[in-house]
């Protein structure tokens, strides 16, 4: 259907070749002329200069030629870009939520994933949302980038050509773990994709749901808590969940240090008002309140899950 990993690659790459080609020609040409002049009109070889004040004809020539060239470059660049803004109606919609410092992809049937699964050779439209600051969704292999701006509904689209895994970066600086806000685009064959999609939305059957904390674990993964809090004791932006429940920690409250025990009430407060008590050794203001995003029931489930990660060591 087209060469390259997405429907835009060949157009964008031709624009690159056109612009860089002309630029290289001028860079090499002008440099060569300058070196030749320095050699030829060196004061040793050419002791008396000629006082040439200028040439209107030359000025006109070297104004008009660059003007024509840059207008051609403009046209090539716009021509390759314009289709990126015309989103086909039949495109499969994926809702993208960017949040410090993770990506979340929600499909039309409600399935949520942290990797962007898409079928090959099918148009996919991404609806971009940010819950905190500006991020930018960048897939180098597809030559695509669009900022994800809080408070604005934006979108982008593509057709992936080849089955494979590609990098997806955040390209707009978004704070502490900006360089870790990356995931993958997995392009799979359409039937494989349909099978994957049908396996969701992820709901737990009754037996699995009976395991304490199973529901909470799902919430933690889908709400990107794990971008900053690990479950294995590693220190990231926030404290690890491992072994934290029932543990005594020193927190800073309104500039004063005090010791508290991590209990239901403390976890709930940390979710809804994260800057109230900040554990000593961690930066204040890194986390936003999840008020409105998580229900009381959700929070209860999260607490259940944290309890399963071990009590006081």
């Amino acid at each position, binding site marked *: 259907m087209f060469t390259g990993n997405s429907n835009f690659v060949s157009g*964008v790459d031709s624009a690159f070749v056109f612009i860089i080609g002309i630029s290289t020609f001028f860079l090499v040409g002008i440099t060569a002329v300058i070196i030749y002049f*320095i050699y030829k009109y060196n004061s040793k070889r050419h002791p008396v200069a*000629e*006082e040439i004040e200028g040439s209107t004809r030359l000025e006109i020539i070297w104004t008009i030629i660059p003007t024509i060239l840059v207008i051609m*470059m403009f046209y090539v660049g716009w021509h390759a870009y314009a289709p990126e803004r015309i989103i086909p109606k039949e495109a499969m919609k994926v809702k993208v939520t960017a949040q410090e410092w993770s990506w979340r992809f929600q499909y039309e049937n409600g399935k949520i994933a942290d990797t962007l699964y898409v079928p090959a050779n099918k148009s996919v439209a991404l609806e971009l949302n940010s819950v905190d600051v500006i991020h930018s969704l960048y897939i180098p292999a597809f030559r695509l980038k669009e900022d994800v*701006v809080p408070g604005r509904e934006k979108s982008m689209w593509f057709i992936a050509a080849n089955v494979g895994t590609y990098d997806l970066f955040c*390209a707009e600086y978004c704070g502490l773990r900006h360089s870790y806000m990356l995931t993958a685009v997995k392009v799979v064959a359409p039937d494989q994709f349909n099978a994957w999609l049908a396996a969701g939305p992820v709901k737990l059957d009754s037996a699995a749901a009976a395991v304490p904390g199973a529901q909470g674990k799902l919430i933690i993964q889908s709400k990107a808590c794990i971008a900053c809090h690990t479950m294995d004791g590693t220190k990231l932006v926030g404290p690890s969940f491992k072994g934290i429940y029932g543990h005594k920690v020193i927190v800073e409250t309104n500039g004063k240090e005090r010791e508290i025990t991590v209990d239901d009430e403390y976890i709930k407060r940390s979710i809804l008002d994260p800057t109230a008590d900040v554990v000593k050794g961690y930066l204040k203001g890194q986390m*936003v309140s999840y008020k409105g995003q998580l229900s009381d029931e959700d929070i209860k489930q999260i607490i259940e899950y944290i309890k399963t990660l071990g009590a006081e060591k």
Partner: protein
Amino acid sequence: MTGNIIHHQPSYLEYQGRYKGLLGWILSTDHKRIALLYLYSQLAFFFAGMIMGVFMRLELIAPGRQIMDPATYNALFTMHGLTMIFLFIIPGLAASFGNFFLPILIGAKDVAFPKLNLFSWYLFVGGALIVLIGMFTGDGPPDTGWTFYAPYSLRTNTNVVVTVFGAFVLGFSSVLTGLNFIVTIHRMRAPGMGFFRMPLFIWAMYGTAWIQLLATPVVGITFIMVIADRLLGIGFFDPAKGGDPILYQHLFWIYSHPAVYIMILPAMGAITEIITTFSNRVVFGYKAIAMSSLAIAFVGYLVWGHHMFTSGMSETARWVFSLLTFLVAIPSAIKVFNWSATLYKGSINLQPPFWWAMAFIFVFMIGGLTGLVLGSVATDVHVHDTMFVVAHFHYIVFGGAGLAFFAALHYWYPKMFGKMYNKRVSNIGLLVVFIGFNTLYFPMFILGIMGMPRRYYDYLPEFTFLNQISTVGSWILVTGMIIVVTNLLRAKKMAPEFIDNPWGGRTLEWKIQSPPPLENFEEIPVIDHGPYDLVKD
């Protein structure tokens, strides 16, 4: 030609005014002393910024943590940007060489408002101190990048308010300097010096001064809005309160893109002077170069949107800004063509300032031509916010304005201090700088095209090799810079020479003694010919 002027006046360095020592400098309203105050403070900030850059490159020598945590890295690239941009290159050649040579080149005794000029330097130092206070107090140095993009800059806990206020104060220094220069150029030219008899450095300074005066207030107001958002919770830029973060980007770039021309225009002016002097002939295409300076200053106002092709502007805005961006390339190209043509049938004197100017043209061409990639929407979308932009920016601002700063320093050094540096060491230093510069920044173009985003503390393994080359380049560049600056510092200790016109320059500064006397001219010269015309004595 040289050394035949009798020095019967004390130079501005020797002149004893009402105060002695340090006070004689920081209370002097002599434009030349103020120029040196700027020069020394700018060079100090340049070296501070360079050390930060070296540490950043060291962190990036391999994936994962090397010498610092991500919070430190984010603060470091913010401080590197703030120091280099607001404290070194925005004052740039205008504050130091502009202050020193603008009055001399138009045959004036000083600028129009000498006290305002000194006050501008106080504002510069005051603003710089506030920025420094912002870095070392509160909950840590700002980690927003020098762009202070909202809403991140509204949410971060670091010391944004103080730093932004420092930048606000610095803006006043820039506005007042611009105003001073505009009035000086209009009112203080020597008799007979019409606009088209002004040296081309003055034309460049004239364009620059208008940008300083008209564009800087926009960013000043924007910074005040950020402070109001943070302190009073107004929400101009906060989407949670109905504000618009894209508005911030518009306001920021309406100033900050023209600011690039504040940096580069005086650089282009100095390069024009250098090439003409060392070609020993009249400049080629005087009017074309003069008009291109004004064209750059004017069109440069209208291209800010190319920083925002992915931000969410309308489709119309995207193509209009792309087209305008391409138009600003034309006057820059005209300058390069006229510089090359000035070499034609000249009698080229291969001295260190000339080599610096040639190094400038080469890296500036790479910077300018890669700018075309960023002006075209399709290609910009791929490399926007990647290492490609970092490379392009450093080729223009460091390779362009920065190298021109050192070219100007080598060109005017004998005039400013009445002493000559070791030319061989200077050439060696330049060669090392040139190799280091390209090794440091060229790999970033490729990294960007490969897809490595900028402002990354850590990166994927596929980017390792080019990052390592780049880091090695930073060591070479620093070595070159140390050679260059040590050479100039050593020259200051040497005995003064009678070198009033060591390069055979034709403009007015070469007709007075080195270093110049307090009021530059014993008698205000009467101008009856173009600035570069050959006049038989």
